């Protein structure tokens, strides 16, 4: 019996991989019964105002037509189908990074209120990462205060770069300092560096540029000392860390290079305290690598809905060599610790 790979996508291919460590087989059977209660930390929402403002920017070839027909119910249907109890929603690329500063402020506020309303309308089903009108620092600080203290957001959602500036850039410092004070969860979503958006015909930026941009922002946070300066921020990186786990030796070697200023804490200490969600990376090739870097306690379930579904990611995870305990931690337990308000949901 050849077991299925997520990339080969043989739909009913079994998890009974003959080469998998045999001690896992019985437990795996048991775990199959527990196909619900997931917490999806990478789940997009759209508001009518946002779509109207971002419309053409949001369009890219090959993306799912669902985005123009999305309603909270579309999300709920997919969540139910994929065993997701709660989704922490956020904006996808380009976030509110376009247009005039006033438009960004208005859109961030409007999106955050919309998400808070979704959470109130469907108790236990939705949380949200607040959008911030960066790089406007004062407005971003105001939005943090409003979204945390009034709307009870579950964290903030940041893009990996803004106009080529990565998250360790001094321009973001006051915002990250405030998030540190609040011990916030910071979810980052990739966005392509503008100059790399159309490097090759027929290859959308999401295919290659998204992954590398996450890796860049991780490098920026670590090597500027920002990660060490914000030890209480719980960072979540998308898509299993972009490409970081594959390149990890480049990071550890750079830290040891003569002339590189010493970091307060070892590179691996920082990389291992971050969280990594598995959307578009719930396959053995990526997660074998991620599993070399972090324990399952640092992995989170994510879907990238509406571009991908919870069912796809759940099936992908089942084909990886996690123990039932590990998988249940990835599906729900790790996220429930980050977002305790959904613990009983």
């Amino acid at each position, binding site marked *: 019996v*050849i*077991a*299925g*790979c*997520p*990339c*080969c996508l*043989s739909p009913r291919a079994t998890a009974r*991989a*003959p*080469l*998998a*460590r045999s001690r896992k087989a019985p437990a795996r059977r048991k775990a199959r019964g527990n196909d619900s209660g997931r917490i999806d930390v990478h789940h997009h929402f759209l508001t009518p105002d946002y779509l109207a403002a971002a419309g053409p920017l949001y369009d890219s070839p*090959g993306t799912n037509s669902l985005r123009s027909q999305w309603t909270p119910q579309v999300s709920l249907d997919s969540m139910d189908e994929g065993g997701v109890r709660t989704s922490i929603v956020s904006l996808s690329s380009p976030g509110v990074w376009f247009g005039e500063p006033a438009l960004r402020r208005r859109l961030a506020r409007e999106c955050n209120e919309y998400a808070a309303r979704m959470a109130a309308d469907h108790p236990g089903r939705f949380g949200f990462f607040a959008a911030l009108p960066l790089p406007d620092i004062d407005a971003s600080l105001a939005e943090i205060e409003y979204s945390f203290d009034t709307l009870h957001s579950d964290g903030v959602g940041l893009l990996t770069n803004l106009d*080529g500036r*990565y998250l*360790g850039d001094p321009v973001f410092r006051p915002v990250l300092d405030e998030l540190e004070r609040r011990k916030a969860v910071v979810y980052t979503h990739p966005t392509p*560096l503008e*100059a*790399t958006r159309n*490097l*090759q015909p*027929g*290859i*959308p930026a999401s*295919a*290659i*540029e998204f*992954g*590398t941009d996450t*890796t*860049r922002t991780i*490098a920026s946070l670590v*090597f*500027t000392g920002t990660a060490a300066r914000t030890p209480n921020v719980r960072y979540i990186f998308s898509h*299993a860390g972009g*490409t970081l*786990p*594959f*390149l*990890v*030796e*480049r990071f550890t070697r*750079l830290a040891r290079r003569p002339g*590189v*200023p010493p970091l307060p804490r070892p590179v691996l200490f920082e990389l291992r305290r971050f969280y990594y969600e598995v959307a*578009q*990376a*719930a*396959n*053995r*090739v*990526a*997660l*074998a*690598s991620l*599993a*070399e870097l972090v324990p399952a306690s640092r992995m989170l379930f994510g879907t990238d809905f509406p571009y991908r579904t919870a069912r796809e990611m759940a099936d992908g995870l089942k084909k*990886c*060599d996690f123990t039932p305990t590990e998988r249940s931690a990835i599906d729900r337990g790790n996220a429930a610790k980050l977002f305790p308000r959904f613990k009983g949901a």
Partner: protein
Amino acid sequence: MFAPCPCFAAASRGRTAARIAPRPAKRPAKASKPSPQRIDVHHHIVPPAYKALGPARDFVATWTPEMALEDMDKAGTATAITCIYAGSALAGHPEARRVARECNDYAAQLGRDYPGRFGMFATLPFPDVEGCLAEIEYAFDVLEADGVYTQTSYGRQYLGDPAFAPVWEELNRRKSIVFAHPHTPEVCEDLIPGVPGPIIEYGTDTTRAIASLVFSGTASRLPDLRFIFCHAGGTMPFIIERFTRLAKRKDHAEKLPKGVLHELKRFYYECAQAAHPGAMSSLLQLVKVSQILFGTDFPYRTAGDIAGGLAKCGFDDKALQAIHRGNALRLFPRFR
């Protein structure tokens, strides 16, 4: 570590399968082992003609063939297939044809001076297609080169760019080996203070080049070309799901009659700067051990470095021997 994926590591059922064992099973290296007679397919040299084009980092500036041989001897490298230490100064240079020729003459002389120790990937004056074709003829027919060296991109042109098609067609006719070496595209330079381009951008540019060759249909159209990609494929294995999803698009699927995985699995991947479990665990889920080659990136890294890294990746002895020598011997039989 994950057990090998039976679909990706296609030889799963038998003896040739990659066996990445769980960590506790790994054995300490034996001191008395015979020399592995490694073949290093990623080994930079510093031809004077290229060095004359611009300043080089200190350890590159002081390179000599003896330095290379000393490192090779120390770690048990029998043969290194050489390439120039950087290519960007050559791309578009008005005298690129002359410089490429002199680099190739230099590399060939090195091979004659130290028989059996050095092969060569010929330098080509990309993106000058006519110049490339002329140099291919000279390098193969006169110098008996072992393959060609290219950058992963030239400006905004990636390897599957239609403009380069005549070069690949000629190389396909010769059933040539193409060593694709990454660089940092201009638009990705100096993005993050303190983080040099190679750390992140090299890997990504290799991935872009692979995407270009695959999705342009170049790879499937020219099945006799044997590509070697650096650093375990850049970052391609890690984002494999993006490749397989994109390949389902109708325009791409038409150009990939055997599927995208067929192409990705027939390429070769050398392990310089990637001889660690984070990269190898992933690569091995995708390709057979037969596609993995030993490479060092000397003088940026040493053979001992990479060999030591590989020893910690959980390969069994047979797989290690294939990576160190056996797989490369099939590509470069003259070093048998």
